[in-house]
């Protein structure tokens, strides 16, 4: 990019994405940082556009993040993440009447899973189950491949998994801990029917990725304005709530190893 405006890519997984980025753009302007955004309909296009250098940085899912890192041979620049992106976990939830006492019991059962590009509802729970010695091929997968290209952002497939569990179409299912916790806290999970069986180890989620050749001044300005957003400030809090976080955090890389291993194992790079 030749001008001094930071151009950010984001995927429009919901109409609220416009509200979020217009709000954040206003906040950046107030901080003296010029920023604009381009919306994509899917992460694959966003990643390609970033790699061509048509945008400075992208707000990426973990799947898009590790793909960018692989394609740039680790030269892309990670700029920040949400507090909720750290130590994300996936859950295996089971029907209480399914007689599933241990992970091995999942074999032969109907296992509902989220979209195939959802890190938390499909890729990583299946990876960790395999690591725990479950022969996933022996489970009957009931897959909800909704909103492909959005990498699970909409949460639709996770809600589908919970619905299938509640109405008995599945005996077990995989969801991220965020949806699982929020649905429980909101009273939308029937604890008489379903309960958690297994929690995966932690992994990290979304990340702001900058092109390897991105202007370092822009990257610094972006981080400064981003980290200035505060939960206690009414205008910020509205945006943070919409984006699903309470605090922006510094980037860290150690939380993506399991995803890389899973993508290799599942031949899904």
């Amino acid at each position, binding site marked *: 990019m030749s001008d001094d405006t930071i151009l950010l890519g984001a995927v429009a997984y919901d109409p609220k994405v416009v509200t979020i980025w217009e709000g954040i753009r206003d906040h950046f302007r107030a901080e003296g940082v010029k920023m604009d955004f381009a919306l994509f309909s899917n992460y694959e296009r966003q990643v390609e556009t970033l790699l061509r250098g048509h945008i400075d940085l992208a707000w990426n899912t973990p799947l898009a993040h590790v793909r960018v890192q692989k394609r740039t041979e680790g030269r892309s620049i990670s700029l920040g993440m949400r507090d909720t992106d750290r130590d994300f976990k996936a859950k295996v939830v089971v029907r209480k009447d399914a007689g599933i006492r241990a992970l091995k019991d999942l074999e032969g059962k109907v296992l509902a899973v989220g979209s195939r590009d959802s890190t938390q509802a499909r890729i990583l729970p299946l990876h960790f189950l395999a690591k725990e010695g479950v022969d996933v091929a022996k489970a009957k997968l009931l897959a909800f491949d909704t909103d492909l290209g959005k990498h699970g952002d909409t949460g639709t497939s996770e809600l589908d998994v919970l619905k299938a569990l509640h109405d008995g179409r599945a005996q077990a299912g995989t969801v991220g801990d965020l949806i699982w*916790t929020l649905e429980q806290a909101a009273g939308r999970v029937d*604890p008489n029917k379903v309960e958690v069986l297994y929690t995966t180890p932690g992994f990290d989620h979304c990340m702001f990725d900058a092109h390897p050749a991105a202007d370092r001044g822009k990257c610094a300005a972006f981080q400064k304005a981003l980290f200035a957003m505060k939960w206690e400030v009414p205008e910020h809090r509205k945006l943070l709530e919409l984006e699903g976080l309470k*605090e922006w955090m510094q980037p860290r890389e150690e939380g993506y190893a399991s995803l890389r291993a899973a993508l290799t194992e599942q031949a899904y790079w």
Partner: protein
Amino acid sequence: MIATLAIEAGDLPLGGGLLALVRPALLLLEPGGILAVRSSAASVVQDLPSWCRVERHRYLGYEDGRHLIERGSLGAPRGAREWGYRLKKPSAAEVVRAVPMPDTANADTGFAPRGARVEPGGPRYPFDLLERDRVAPPEVAQLYDQAVAAQWDVGRDIPWDTVGEHDPAIESAVCQVMTFLAENELSALYVPSRFIARIHPAYVETAMFLSTQLADEARHIDVFLRRARVAGGGLGVSSVTTSRSLLSLLEYEDFTEAAFVLSVLGEGTFLDLLRFVEEHAPDPATAEIARRTRNDESRHVHFGLAHVRHALSTDPTLFGRLEAAVRRRAATLHDVGGVPTPLQDSLTLLAAGSTEPRAVARGHEAFRALLEAMHAARIKRLDRAGFTAEQAELMSTLHTANFM
């Protein structure tokens, strides 16, 4: 690890009621405080750490059958927790004694009642009456309690069957007076209502008092219009003089100026007008209407005086501003002339009791005496508000010929 607070959660699952114990317990803790949750539910071992992650509390682990949680700092409500009140005879005045109004209020707390702990990060509200001394005189809660106790019912409390038949000229005069009263009370309904939405809820007792004032005005409008149409008559004329005068009331943007001009000067003058109507009413129902409405109005005048006196005692520059407010209004009304003629004639005939010329002469005298009584009473009220004799004389003279 020593917990600050401990709860027994039995075998409750996270999604099956556990949070109804955990969340209120965390609200009692300061950030950094430790909550111990004794739980025998196996699922909670997996679900509670996830919930803590999402809510930004620190899950410290599970030991001796207890989950330990360190309360996070994000979103902790501000202020001290209220607890232990035992109000004896709950009245608004007692509430204000127990929970005093703050000197200034913060618009970020929205509609949170005074005393509630407020979670930070809520939106700003457009309240701009944020200083106690400009909004809430010390007597306001007491006046509110009195107003609530003094509400009356137009259908039940007026002896409507005593109206009877009058000479059409006298009935017509009554109808014109009722028309004028209703029109002015409409302004007394609209003017305070413009300020209620600007008052910070920390001073809710003022909004509550004003709402009784609005209820009073609504009842007055109702009773005046009913009286005009109950004995063969109907509404009279609305004058441009009245219309101009009332519009100028609606244009005040400052709460204290509006309270001063509407309640102290306008409604104050109406006390004398209503006493005149009561004294010369042709029937007991009309007299009772005037008596009851005057009682209500005197409460409004009392509040207006309390408001202005209190504001003046804390801000001496206000004397000049209030005087300027009266002068400004007088300047816009300078070409309006005297008392609206339809009203003037009706009051004269009302006092005369008939169209017989000698009676009319007496009525005219009574009307002139009324104007003098109004002027004298206004000066007394201004004196009670704290103005000098010169200021009082000037402001009373500049007061609108429309009375309100």
